[in-house]
């Protein structure tokens, strides 16, 4: 009989809720975004059949411009490279999303792959969130250069990551930045240790596993 393995977080056993580091008001919050459906899509951005099919299934226009995203209805599409995107859904089965996109695309020249099990998404939120990532990432994370909706693949603590600027707070200020870091599952624990180590001086809260 085939045993179906339950989905398990790469941070299980490591992520411990609580408040740590420097005293006073914690400068940031770390949490894991779990049970996301993450599907990699490749196709020709110049082919209306391709872009229409993705819009039909997700309700979102593919972000064609580099380093940008499209968001709505609990879904986000992140630009990865020319003709490469990541479709991320909260509260949807990844298999349903993958199959739905495949069906919508039909025989259109495209590739759709469910990579949900292979990615860990860590949310870094709070006033000091950009300062924490800047310790190991060469992206310009200032709200002016990396505003709400921006994304970028880069290196964080020598680990390849995708950083999504989910929200930079009111008028691009630094009151409540929310940055999501996508990392390959095998590197999640290493990155987590880098983040918790680096967050000590700011004081940080770890949200419990949802």
């Amino acid at each position, binding site marked *: 009989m085939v045993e179906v393995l339950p989905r398990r977080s790469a941070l299980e056993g490591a992520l411990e809720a609580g408040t740590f580091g420097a005293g006073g008001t914690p400068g940031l919050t770390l949490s894991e975004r779990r049970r996301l459906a993450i599907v990699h899509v490749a196709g020709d951005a110049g082919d209306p059949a391709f872009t229409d099919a993705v819009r039909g299934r997700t309700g979102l226009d593919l972000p064609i411009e*580099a380093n940008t995203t499209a968001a709505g209805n609990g879904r986000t599409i992140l630009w*990865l490279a020319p003709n490469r995107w990541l479709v991320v859904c909260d509260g949807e089965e990844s298999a349903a999303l993958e199959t739905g996109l495949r069906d919508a695309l039909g025989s259109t020249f495209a590739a759709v792959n469910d990579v949900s099990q292979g990615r860990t998404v860590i949310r870094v939120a709070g006033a000091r969130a950009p300062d924490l990532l800047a310790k190991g990432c*060469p992206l310009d994370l200032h709200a002016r250069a990396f505003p709400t909706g921006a994304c970028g693949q*880069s*290196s964080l603590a020598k680990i390849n990551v995708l950083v999504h600027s989910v929200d930079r707070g009111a008028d691009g200020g630094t009151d409540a930045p929310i940055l999501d870091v996508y990392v390959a599952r095998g590197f999640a624990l290493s990155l987590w240790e880098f983040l918790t180590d680096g967050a000590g001086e700011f004081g940080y809260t770890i949200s419990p596993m949802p």
Partner: protein
Amino acid sequence: MHLIKCPWCGERAEMEFTYGGDGTLTRPADPEAASDAEWTDYVYFRDNPRGPHEELWQHASGCRRWIKVRRNTLTHEILATGPADRPLEGNAS
């Protein structure tokens, strides 16, 4: 921080890129007909220019695309960048 302009992602830190070698090489057009000497030249022999040189780099931590970079090998100044599948704009020197 030393920046290299990816044609798609924009100005990014050099550490996101991987060096991919001489960008001026041309594979023998007719592989069956090329002599051992021509293959040896293509596979092994490289010039070592002092000054502007066209190179291949990969935006390995970014969009993963291969790009062409014209770099001054003496000063490390990046003079031009562009997609790998077409000639770089501007003069080589």
